[in-house]
């Protein structure tokens, strides 16, 4: 999301007309009242966001079980994680879920947005129906899909109606991740469709008309107008979808609790289990820091890629 830079006017010089005058001057007003308005929320941010971030790094360098005081052990938590087959499996499962969900998501949600951007009959009703998964609470989504993937559930009933064999989705470690991905798409396609649609509606109609007059084909118009002007939206969708999917938790906890055989023990569940079931606060923090670093690197690379490449020719 582009952040507009403050238009900063030249700061007035400190007045020399004495303290009283200075306090009523523009400078003092800006300093004082700016602080008054910002401070209440800023304090909450310091206590519950900035300090925990620093603390996460510090904890990751310690051995801490909540009962005995933290013990500094340097990078040993990270070494342990890298060598831990459970953590590697967890990282692999997360990567599978994130990539498996996001790549189709980018295309399908754009497709849905393009469709809803057309003049179609009963558009409002269709859009409301399509949007329903987004207004479901996460816990309800998890329960619905757990039931859909029941051996006699709707998914298998549908497969059998098509003459295919049913699958024990949640007990088969090869089938469970595709099942999770489908459940993810169900809620995320409508969500990102909304974001794409907002981007599409911001493109002026005149561009398409002008291009049509100049004889541009519909493919050309799509590439040179739609895709070109959607670039900021596409960047946003890519970054946000990766962050959102990498923190999948409720589904992993409620549908399978990480099973079968750890196939859905994604990193957030790994962190939760190590912190609050095994009380390995340091190890859990190290896993959080790794997740944060990976997401940060990904975001920076994306921003860099999108600023480097020129408009698609």
């Amino acid at each position, binding site marked *: 999301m582009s952040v507009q830079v403050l238009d900063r006017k030249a700061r007035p010089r400190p007045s020399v007309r004495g303290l009283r005058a200075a306090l009523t001057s523009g400078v003092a007003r800006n300093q004082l009242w700016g602080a008054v308005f910002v401070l209440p929320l800023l304090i909450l941010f310091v206590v519950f966001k900035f300090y925990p971030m620093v603390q996460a790094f510090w904890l990751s360098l310690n051995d801490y079980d909540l009962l005995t005081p933290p013990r500094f052990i340097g990078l040993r938590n990270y070494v342990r994680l890298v060598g831990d087959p459970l953590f590697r499996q967890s990282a692999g499962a997360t990567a599978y879920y994130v990539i498996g969900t996001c790549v189709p998501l980018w295309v399908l949600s754009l497709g849905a947005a393009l469709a809803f951007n057309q003049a179609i009959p009963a558009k409002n009703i269709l859009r409301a129906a399509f949007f329903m998964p987004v207004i479901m609470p996460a816990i309800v989504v998890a329960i619905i899909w757990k039931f859909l993937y029941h051996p006699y559930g709707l998914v298998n009933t549908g497969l059998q109606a098509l003459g295919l064999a049913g699958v024990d989705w949640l007990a088969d470690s090869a089938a469970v991740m595709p099942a999770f991905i489908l459940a993810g798409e169900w809620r995320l396609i409508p969500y990102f469709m909304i974001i794409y649609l907002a981007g599409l509606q911001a493109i002026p109609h005149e561009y398409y008309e002008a291009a049509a007059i100049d004889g541009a084909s519909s493919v050309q118009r799509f590439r040179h107008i739609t895709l070109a002007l959607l670039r900021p939206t596409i960047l946003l969708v890519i970054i946000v979808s990766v962050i959102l999917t990498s923190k999948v938790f409720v589904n992993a906890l409620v549908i399978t609790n990480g099973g079968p055989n750890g196939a859905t023990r994604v990193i957030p569940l790994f962190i939760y289990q190590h912190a609050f079931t095994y009380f390995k606060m340091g190890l859990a923090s190290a896993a*959080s820091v790794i997740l944060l670093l990976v997401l940060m690197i990904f975001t920076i690379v994306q921003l860099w890629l999108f600023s480097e490449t020129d408009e698609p020719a």
Partner: protein
Amino acid sequence: MLTRCLMMRQIARALAFIAFAGIVAMFFVPIVWMISTALKPLDRVFALPIEWVPADPRWDNFVTAWNRFTFGRYFVNSLVVTISVTGIHCVLAAFAGYGFAKYRFFGNRLLFLAILSTMMLPIEVVIVPTFLIVRDLGWLNTYQGLVVPVIADAFGVFLMRQFMLRIPDALIEAARIDGAHEVKIFFRIVLPLSWAPAVTLAVFMWRETWDAFVWPFVIITQNDLRTLPLGIARFQEEFVTTYNEVMAVAVIGMIPLALMFLFFQRAFVQGIALSGLKE
């Protein structure tokens, strides 16, 4: 020839529309199945062919399920937490947004960027230290534990600041010359102009907080402090195979947000369109 070509095009369009409507319907089918299951007797849940509209709807499934747990209490807890978070956050975010938009104080830009950067920070990354802070404050299993840490959310600050940047300085300056106090300027001039983003923000925070799972799940262990999502999660754990009642509870859990969507559709959709950065 020309008419035939036109007709073909119309048929193609109609087919495309039917395919599209079919795809859209597929997104809706799981919800219909959930509702119809909630109304079936347990022994008919997996009956084939599927009864989409149960012949003899069992409305009492809802009552039985509701009474198995203290769902009334969970509902009230969710309401208390959601109203508190939404109310306090909107006020503080409006304050902060105004401060960032209209006062040139030391570190304005840096602080704003620091706050903005937390939008990219999943709670999972800081859940352990945040848990420890809340524990040290003695707030585990309390309402303040559920409310206060959640108020520190960046989206509202961003939204209010972007909007307030567009309020003309001249308007504020004029009030100042008339001798209005800074606080009065905020409440009398800035706030009344900022209703639109404030409503979007309120609807957005309401949805976020009502839906919150991870944080309450970590800090709440006492039954009478559980929020509705936690209660639903426990219900489905305990009554796994009572599918009809589990679905009834799921329907109940869905209703508050569905109603909200009905009444605030615009603000609801706009919150998502604008944010993107939050779940």
